[in-house]
């Protein structure tokens, strides 16, 4: 589909479904190296967004959708994930403000702005075993695909694939940010829950673009 507001809303609706489906999986990942609330918080936040999507005006642009997602997640998720995902969507909204349809360059700008927002708030670097380890590979893969002339769908698929690989790659690492950092070497062998929810979110973006 064309990547306009209809896609943006479909992405967020699918994300809400996916967060509900993977609620227990995210809780379990977080219980192993955090405090076990990530799945609950993401599910609560995206369900709250679902309830508000229909209130958007008919002529809303993708940026308006992302802004609504941002403010809703900030006020409903709590924990670290609320401000981090909220800031990501807020920066993404600013990056694509005014555009009614997103092209490849806009997609790369959206993903880059989201990642930069997460880094700005959380001050994590690549390799710290956080969301950034899904987002940065996704941004790099999307930019490379765009440069190679890929279409919108393939850019999003490249981002989703890289995010999933990035989440898996966190498993053998020690965490240097967030609650898992308190565990030292005991975090080894566990996937970062924030990287996993990030991968789910980006897969939903690609899946809805393919529909």
């Amino acid at each position: 589909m064309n990547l306009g507001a209809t896609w943006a809303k479909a992405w967020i609706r699918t994300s809400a479904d996916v967060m509900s489906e993977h609620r227990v999986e995210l809780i379990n990942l977080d219980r192993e190296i955090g405090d076990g609330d990530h799945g609950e918080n993401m599910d609560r936040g995206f369900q709250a967004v679902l309830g508000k999507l229909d209130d958007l005006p008919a002529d809303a642009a993708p940026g308006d959708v992302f802004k609504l997602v941002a403010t809703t997640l900030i006020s409903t998720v709590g924990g670290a994930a609320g401000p981090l995902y909220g800031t990501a969507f807020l920066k993404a909204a600013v990056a694509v403000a005014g555009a009614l349809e997103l092209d490849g360059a806009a997609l790369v700008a959206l993903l880059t702005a989201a990642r930069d927002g997460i880094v700005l708030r959380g001050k994590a670097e690549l390799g710290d075993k956080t969301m950034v380890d899904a987002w940065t590979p996704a941004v790099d893969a999307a930019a490379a695909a765009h440069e190679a002339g890929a279409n919108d769908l393939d850019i999003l698929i490249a981002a989703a694939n890289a995010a999933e690989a990035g989440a898996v790659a966190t498993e053998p690492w020690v965490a240097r940010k967030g609650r898992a950092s308190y565990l030292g070497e005991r975090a080894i062998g566990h996937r970062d829950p924030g990287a996993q929810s990030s991968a789910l979110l980006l897969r939903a973006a690609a899946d809805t673009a393919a529909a």
Partner: protein
Amino acid sequence: MKKLVNDPKNVVDEAVAGFGAAHADLVSVHQDPNFIVRKDAPVAGKVGLVSGGGSGHEPMHGGFVGFGMLDAAVPGAVFTSPTPDPILAATKAVDGGAGVLHIVKNYTGDVLNFETAADLAAADGIEVRSVLVNDDVAVKDSLYTAGRRGVAGTVLVEKIAGAAADRGDNLDAVATVAEKVIARVRSMGVALTPCVVPHAGEPSFTLAEDEIEIGIGIHGEPGRERIRLEPADAIVDRLLGPILDDIPFVSGDEVLLMVNGMGGTPQIELYIVFRHAAEVLAAKGLTVTRTLVGNFTTSLEMQGMSITVLKLDQELTTLWDAPVQTAALRWGR
């Protein structure tokens, strides 16, 4: 898992409502968003003190709202930081024109949400200062972690800073006193059993019948080291060693010794712990001049305890002794 709950989704709302009903003489409770304020808030001309964090640590923080301590407490979901909106609402509700101090425990979520709320409050013209409590010596290598966690020492920060605010100190002075306490307080804890978050329904980690977890935080997160159960005195030695080495505490110091229950440990065991902790401090030449024993910073129904030592001086002792009237701490008035 057996718990006295209705719908697990309503745990915090129902507990906050009950707290307000039980302590209507001390506090007012606001719901949606949830926050608890001192009955007479805002107190004109007084610095407002706001703390908060995930629920499940009761009586922290709601139990410390009242004269001589906090002006507001903002409870999040169980073990989850509150979002910026209720923190902002509480900040506005207690602003008496002298500014507001946020007392934040050093966890990534709490820091991010309080930062966001402070930015929003500043945009509304309220002067906000923040202090980060990080008394837990179990976390090593702050350079490679999110930094030391805030645990039971938070209670002492809130009490002493609250007394400074109630005697009329300005925002800078209250923040300075709070920072002074933070610089001089150290804690470490142990878990004998894990705890169960109501909506999760399963323990946050598992311990064998003969295992204990040394260096736990207060959110059911695992600690630094898992060992076989030992006699109480040996466990006290394991916790006090890193605490005393850290500042360090030296012979001649006057200290406040706090033994804090994690929620599921009976008082009789806390006093066994206190007895040996006091002996160890005395042997090191420290004088315990103030004490606090009980459940103040809990982790739901976890069995276990933490030990906190605060290096006192005349100013901190005077502020500790100042009157306080809250649901969980009350003396002198």
